[in-house]
């Protein structure tokens, strides 16, 4: 599904903002996720948090998708991607080039440029982008074989802000794996994305900041499965007027 890697689970889970590593581990298991996102940050000579997190991630035996979160320039993102490739021993990179601090909206111009540089260097790029069709085209031209449009700004829990745009993107790229990344708040948002025909969803805060992260992870997993099944079952089209579901032919005539 992603760069030749077949996965059973269509839910990718972030590892940040959980109350504890134990809660994170329970949430990952409950979600059924086979891919977890990770990041990298500065560590001092006496700090050990990165080392213990690395041991924890290795113990899970899952595939990791490192991100370039917080990068605002092409150069920063490209250097971070190189550090991530070495650190996590993977060609996969969730490429984020942030253009606005309030909305964490991607800088799509920098994103396309960084995606090209990294793709040419052998990376398998998962670009965090908007639902803009032309930007998506440019990303595919740059070498991306997966696209990850936002549902809404990161951590906002607003769901799918532009269903029309996401549907158009799906129709335009029938053969490119599409992942709704960011902005999901509740399982119905994930189900809606899957009903649109998206291949997967990536979420973090909605699970991490729920009152019971493991139970919310399970709820999201069920919603993703339900939405996918609904998509495959070909939903009926909405219409304006009522159509009786019970046949009227043969109805008793009782006067009145």
């Amino acid at each position: 599904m992603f760069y030749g890697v077949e996965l059973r689970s269509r839910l990718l889970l972030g590892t940040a903002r959980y109350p504890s590593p134990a809660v994170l581990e329970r949430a990952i298991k409950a979600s059924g996720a086979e891919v977890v996102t990770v990041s990298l940050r500065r560590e001092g000579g006496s700090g050990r948090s990165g080392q213990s997190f690395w041991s924890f991630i290795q113990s899970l035996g899952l595939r990791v998708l490192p991100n370039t979160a917080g990068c605002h320039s092409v150069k920063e993102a490209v250097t971070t991607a190189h550090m991530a490739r070495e650190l996590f021993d993977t060609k996969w990179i969730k490429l984020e080039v942030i253009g606005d601090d309030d909305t964490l909206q991607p800088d799509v111009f920098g994103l396309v440029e960084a995606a090209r540089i990294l793709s040419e260097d052998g990376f398998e790029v998962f670009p965090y982008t908007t639902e803009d069709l032309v930007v998506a085209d440019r990303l595919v031209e740059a070498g991306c074989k997966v696209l990850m449009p936002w549902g809404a700004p990161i951590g906002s829990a607003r769901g799918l802000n532009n269903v029309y745009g996401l549907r158009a993107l799906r129709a335009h790229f029938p053969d490119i794996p599409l992942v709704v990344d960011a902005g999901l708040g509740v399982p119905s948002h994930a189900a809606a994305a899957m009903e649109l025909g998206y291949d997967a969803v990536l979420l973090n805060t909605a699970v991490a900041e729920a009152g019971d992260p493991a139970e919310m992870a399970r709820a999201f997993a069920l919603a993703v499965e339900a939405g996918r099944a609904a998509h495959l079952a070909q939903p009926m089209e909405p219409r304006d007027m009522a159509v009786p579901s019970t046949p009227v032919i043969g109805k008793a005539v009782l006067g009145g």
Partner: protein
Amino acid sequence: MRIFLNDDAHDVEPGTLAAALESLGFGGRKIATAVNGRFVAATARPKTALADGDRVEVVAPMQGG
């Protein structure tokens, strides 16, 4: 000479990135490095000479979304 490691000034013996990292407690750690904004692979650290005023970034795995 003085280098800046994650913005903090450190006085180290003139030498390579690998030697500086060892002296500052990073030996054997799961880290990635950059010097003056350019990625330096682990295998290149013993061959990368540092100069006075160099800015070294050291990062480690962390939780992310």
